[in-house]
């Protein structure tokens, strides 16, 4: 096979969102990569400082991304609460933690399912996605919608959780745990899945540190970084958070780290539901945001960073969003060189890329 230039994206079966890579391949080995991003630039940063007022921002930033809408809304809420000097009570913290962790579970399940799909393992993809339905049901019941949750608001959460919902969630989580263990076993022990993922797209710990990778990608290489441990925005340690790392740094390890985190998150959610503190689900909000602050939150895909600046007006001065995929694109480009074209899809999807986040 001679030299063939293969376009991967901007629309491709394996890609959930538009990003374009142009591969020069020789015998299906990639020798050169060109990347194009920004197909879905919607100007959300500009909208946040012109058209929308500070109290509408959580609803706007929730629409940066469909999967981690809770994270984006949460980050803005934390930042604005800091700028307005609002202290929320323990119950609000716990409810926010609950949805954040449920969001992490469903996003991780989706990412793992996608990896199974692009390596041509349709059945595993179906199993993973079916297991994911339970957590979607729980989120829908708690927040009232399936994709756009709009749960975190300035000074609290949108609605309280009642006893019946808590019971429903506990029941579903128990079933989910069984299913996750089953699906994880398939990912872990399947021979053909291992052939396509083990030793593919390896990132060493040094490389991960050099390119400043974030989230499960860094943790799969053994780099111990997790914003939940590095930034105090919610009391994760109280409910049994443990950092999950793996050593291998390949596609398989990234999947397994995500499964480890899913199991940890299920445990955390069960702890939260068992020890929910009493209190109101909204606190009084007064005044306007003023000053500048930074917020780091752990989105399912890694560190999500917000820089907020306000000067006491209704409209903010600057809202800067840096999303996890943004941090992971530089290393992604390096990984392709020397990889087989048939492995490129698994490498991209193992990063769980979110282009609408990146382009904003």
């Amino acid at each position: 096979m001679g030299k063939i230039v293969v376009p991967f994206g901007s629309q491709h079966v394996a890609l959930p969102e538009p990003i374009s890579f142009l591969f020069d391949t020789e015998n299906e080995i990639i020798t050169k990569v060109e990347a194009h991003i920004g197909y879905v630039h919607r100007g959300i940063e500009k909208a946040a400082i012109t058209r929308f007022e500070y109290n509408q921002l959580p609803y706007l930033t929730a629409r940066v991304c469909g999967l981690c809408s809770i994270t984006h809304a949460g980050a803005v809420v934390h930042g604005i609460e800091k700028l307005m000097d609002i202290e929320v009570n323990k119950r609000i913290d716990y409810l926010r933690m609950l949805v954040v962790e449920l969001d992490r579970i469903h996003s991780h399940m989706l990412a793992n399912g996608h990896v199974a799909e692009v390596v041509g393992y349709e059945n595993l993809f179906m199993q993973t996605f079916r297991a994911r339905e339970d957590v979607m049901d729980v989120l829908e019941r708690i927040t009232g919608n399936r994709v756009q949750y709009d749960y975190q608001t300035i000074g609290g959460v949108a609605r309280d959780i009642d006893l019946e919902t808590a019971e429903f969630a506990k029941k579903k989580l128990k079933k989910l745990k069984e299913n996750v263990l089953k699906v994880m076993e398939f990912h872990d022990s399947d021979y053909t899945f291992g052939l396509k993922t083990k030793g593919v797209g390896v990132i060493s710990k040094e490389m991960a540190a050099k390119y400043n990778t974030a989230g499960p990608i860094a943790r799969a290489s053994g780099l111990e970084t997790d914003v939940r441990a590095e930034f105090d925005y919610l009391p994760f340690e109280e409910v049994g958070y443990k950092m999950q790392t793996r050593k291998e740094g390949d596609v398989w390890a990234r999947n397994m780290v995500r499964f480890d985190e899913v199991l940890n998150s299920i445990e955390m959610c069960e702890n939260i539901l068992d020890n929910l503190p009493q209190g109101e689900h909204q606190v009084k909000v007064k005044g306007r945001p003023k000053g500048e602050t930074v917020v780091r939150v752990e989105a399912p895909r890694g560190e999500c960073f917000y820089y907020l600046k306000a000067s006491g007006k209704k409209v903010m001065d600057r809202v800067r969003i840096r999303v996890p995929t943004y941090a992971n694109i530089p290393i992604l480009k390096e990984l392709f060189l020397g990889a087989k074209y048939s492995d490129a899809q698994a490498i991209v999807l193992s990063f769980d890329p979110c282009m609408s986040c990146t382009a904003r």
Partner: protein
Amino acid sequence: MLKMFIESLKNLVSEPETIKYPFEPSPEPKGYRGTIHYNEELCIFCDKCENICPPGAIKFVVVDYETGKKEYNYNPYLCIYCGACVRECPKADEGCLVQVETRTPPLGRSVPKGKELGYFINRIDNPKEVESKWREIEELNIKTKEEYKAYKKAKRAQKAAAKAKGEE
């Protein structure tokens, strides 16, 4: 591989989990965030819902400057169903603005009707007109508000003048 082999065999003989959606109804989720219902009798026209609404799907239009009567216009096809307006409404507990658990039907050949949906959608019969008519409402919203403000200002000036005159 072998485990999946056995799993596939098991699945082959067990019941599928698919919901046959268009033929059977999909189970309605409990606590779903559906259409926003409005009750004009309880409304105090504070405009709080209009100000918070992120996509701007609620617009008040002043119809009578004399009495300051406003009409509530709600576009369910612009609404993002976040429920911010209901949380903001001071009379929400009494049922002025409520988010019900039923979904708004998708915009097909007909437009949903009902007093609780406000004035806008009840005045439209052709679904294709929703967008253009809404743009008119948005313009009207800005225009009437400004005119009402000017009217009130003028009235206040008139009153002050009358008062000043009376004092003379």
